[in-house]
């Protein structure tokens, strides 16, 4: 079986998580969730993964607030956020397109983004659709800002942006993204054309690497099974695996 794009993306995200103690993932994020479970498998049990809304990977017993309190206590190292729009300053929009409040397009809402983006050290922005529609010059509504002025308490913030085409690092000082790698089959000009914001382009841009053989074996074996427990539709589509 040749390496699938999903597996490359999962591998790229997992590489960002290695060495962390506690990674939390939203219930409806199968690729980040798979990446977290892969990183956990590689950690030999040292990493804790909380999948919100999952029965199996949910360790919280203090109600809806506990995730947020836990983040504020510094006990969550990485989390994933997405956006209906994401802009070049790392701002995300989960509210809508057009003028607020009567937006033409309405997304569900900001959820915990306006909080977690400040408090969790490594926020990984993930949006599979990589088009000028999703990656924009400026979001119509800032659910969570990419950066904050000095003096604002902010131990956390965006660390990287992963899409279906590329991986970007977020440069907090410069308040912009830098292209790190493009996925197999993508070119730098293509990524530029499909991105609505400007970003830094280093002299050489790598291709996002396929996972190493041992990682791939782990991913397709025990990790795929674990993924199937929480994201059954995704596991079946990517690996043909059903929850055991």
């Amino acid at each position: 079986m040749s390496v699938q794009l999903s597996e490359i993306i999962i591998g790229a995200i997992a590489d960002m998580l290695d060495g962390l103690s506690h990674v939390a993932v939203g219930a409806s994020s199968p690729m980040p969730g798979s990446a977290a479970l892969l990183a956990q498998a590689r950690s030999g049990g040292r990493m804790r993964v909380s999948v919100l809304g999952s029965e199996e990977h949910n360790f919280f017993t203090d109600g809806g607030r506990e995730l947020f309190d836990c983040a504020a206590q510094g006990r969550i190292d990485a989390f994933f956020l997405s956006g209906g729009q994401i802009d070049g300053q790392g701002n995300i929009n989960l509210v809508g397109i057009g003028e607020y409040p009567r937006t033409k397009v309405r997304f569900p809402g900001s959820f915990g983004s306006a909080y977690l983006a400040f408090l969790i050290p490594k926020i990984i922005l993930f949006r599979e659709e990589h088009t000028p529609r999703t990656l924009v010059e400026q979001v119509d509504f800032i659910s969570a800002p990419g950066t904050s002025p000095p003096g604002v308490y902010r131990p956390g913030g965006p660390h990287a942006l992963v899409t279906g085409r590329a991986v970007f690092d977020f440069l907090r000082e410069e308040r912009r993204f830098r292209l790190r790698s493009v996925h197999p089959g993508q070119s730098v000009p293509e990524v530029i054309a499909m991105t609505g914001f400007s970003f830094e382009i280093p002299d050489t841009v790598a291709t996002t690497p396929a996972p190493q053989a041992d990682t791939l074996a782990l991913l397709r074996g025990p990790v795929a099974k674990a993924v199937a427990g929480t994201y059954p539709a995704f596991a079946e589509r990517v690996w043909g695996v059903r929850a055991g």
Partner: protein
Amino acid sequence: MAPEIVAVAELARRIPDGASIAIPPDYSGCAMAVVRELLRRPARGLHLVGVPSGGFQADMLIGAGCVAVMEAAAVTLGEHGPPGRFVAAIREGAIVMRDATCPAIHAGLQAAEKGIPFMPLRGIIGSDLLKHRPDWQVIDNPMAGDGAADPIVILPAIRPDIALFHARAADRDGNVWIGVRRELMLMAHAARRTLVSVERIEDRNFLADDAMAAGTIPALYVEAIAQAPNGAWPVGLAGAYPPDEDALAAYAGASRSPEGFAEWLAGALAEEVR
């Protein structure tokens, strides 16, 4: 005084038009049978507080014109796509949306629980949420060291008139078991009145059982309880029965047009009468 045991319809009657109502998200125990009674009336001018988000019950109540204000960190039907009536109401300006972020809803309820006028919370500064919530303020942390400025958001207490939810069981004394769903306990503490539907009423006292007591809302906070087997249908009740995905998908589809919703509503209310 122990909570009264009443019929589902009576539980709904105790919710006056114009009330602010704290409701849980779809996975936490929704009193759907009571919501259908509100749709039937139909209730008017409700102020829904999603704890922290609104799901099917919010979209249904909005569709039936029951809602004046929606306060939540999100309104979502999850995997089933956009909440059609909510999206339409936003576009048409038919409801006032008070967008929030999850921990701000929890913190506001905690302020009400503690009887304090406001709660500080980190984050949020620089989010456009703040621009549109004149009731949220930024103050200088009075406890910041060495005179360094440390702006922090303060949020007013959220004290709903009513907390409304569905739980697995009540006991004969009106104590309600909610297990790990502590946001339901927070809602009951924060709200003026708490109305609960339950799958069953057990002939024992949960507080006398060490393990059960830990997940129990004492009767003290509960005004009335209605027995409503399958009362969280179609969104499901964790540990009891799963969501009815077909019914949810049907609703989600119907919600995307006024006609679809009207037809769904007529069907839903007719079914209930049977």
